[in-house]
């Protein structure tokens, strides 16, 4: 079947099987940041934004992307670099495998929650698993990033 959607701001048209999952379609289009880390819709590595909401692309039929705006980490390089510096600065990065899905959900959180508390941050990001660390570095990096944004962010 034919599916038309926006991928990282560009109109995209593909042919896909009716049971194709969005995750596999995105990877076939070169978005290798989108990964399958589990088979149980639990790890959050496949997180992409659909109409600005974080969804699990491993559980989403590609057919359901018809007419929708899908954003992957490939489409947010600048923002990812800005936040990535904070992650690296706190030593949160180890193997880095879970990182793209995590960053996408952080962006979704920043859009949805206004000035989140540490508890709210943990709750929002509970669906992103990291098997190297205990999430402490990630939490510190988000708190510092929020502070940096509050103080004017990139303008400074």
């Amino acid at each position: 079947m034919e599916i038309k959607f926006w991928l990282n701001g560009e109109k995209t048209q593909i042919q896909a099987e009716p049971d194709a999952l969005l995750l596999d379609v995105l990877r076939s289009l070169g978005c290798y940041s989108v990964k399958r880390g589990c088979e149980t819709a639990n790890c959050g590595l496949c997180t992409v934004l659909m109409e600005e909401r974080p969804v699990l692309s491993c559980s989403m039929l590609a057919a359901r992307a018809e007419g929708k705006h899908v954003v992957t980490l490939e489409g947010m390089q600048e923002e990812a670099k800005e936040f990535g510096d904070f992650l690296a600065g706190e030593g949160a990065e180890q193997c880095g495998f879970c990182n793209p899905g995590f960053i996408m959900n952080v962006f979704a959180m920043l859009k949805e929650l206004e000035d989140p508390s540490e508890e709210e941050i943990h709750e929002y990001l509970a669906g992103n698993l990291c098997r190297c660390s205990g999430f402490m570095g990630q939490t510190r990096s988000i708190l510092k990033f929020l502070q940096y944004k509050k103080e004017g962010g990139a303008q400074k």
Partner: protein
Amino acid sequence: MLKIKEYVKVKDLEEAYLLNQKKTACVLGGMVWLKMGNRNISTAIDLSGLDLDMIEETEEEFRIGAMTSLRTLETHKGLDGYTQGAVKESLRHIVGVQFRNCATVGGSIFGRYGFSDVLTMFLAMDSYVELYKGGIVPLEDFAKKKPDRDILVRVIVKKRPIKTVYLSQRNSSTDFPVLTCCVGLFADGEARAVVGACPQRAGLVQDEQGILKDFCSKDLKAQEQAAVSFAQYAKERVKTGGNMRASKEYRSHLVGVLVKRALLAAGGMDNGN
């Protein structure tokens, strides 16, 4: 692996109903459960073009479209206020935000899954399902039936004043629940206690001995006594089983603990607890 031969985004409920009469057809919810199985689906029926992904609130009721995501349910201010945060509590432990943006109310209720936090929560309220052919049916009756070929259109919750408390026990955060429990104390005197993930699907604990009669109007001491005795009654009455997450005995123990806690918390709400 899940296989789908044909995908149809239906134009109306009649089309969905007709397509769904074939046994190999399947109505899609959020697919987070479905995609883990090995089903061969001839026609995947997608209701997502029918504006059923929203909650309408009127003076008398909440009308929750079958395609409403669990996240939309969780963040709905009206439901949050009506249930004193219980709806949010029943949902926030389910995997993560991305998952709850996919999973739908209709999928969780129609599937009558044993692990369903959603079913446990709704059974404690004055809830109904709206079926395309079957009309409006009390959720309690619907939950007992096996899935058929009808189409679940909406879940309706009547705004009968109620105090609700939702509790669940999980081995680790974001995992399936080991046991779920929701207590609903209606202002008109009816008390409901629901236990789920036994691991069988949620059901009401029928108060055949009237232990919870006039529970809300009792003083704290009498409430405590009634809660202890109903918790014991529930523990004996609710059929539990063992699986990889917990033994039958542990679940039965939890039935007593959670039912008592939820009753006391709901009963004490007026006293600032």
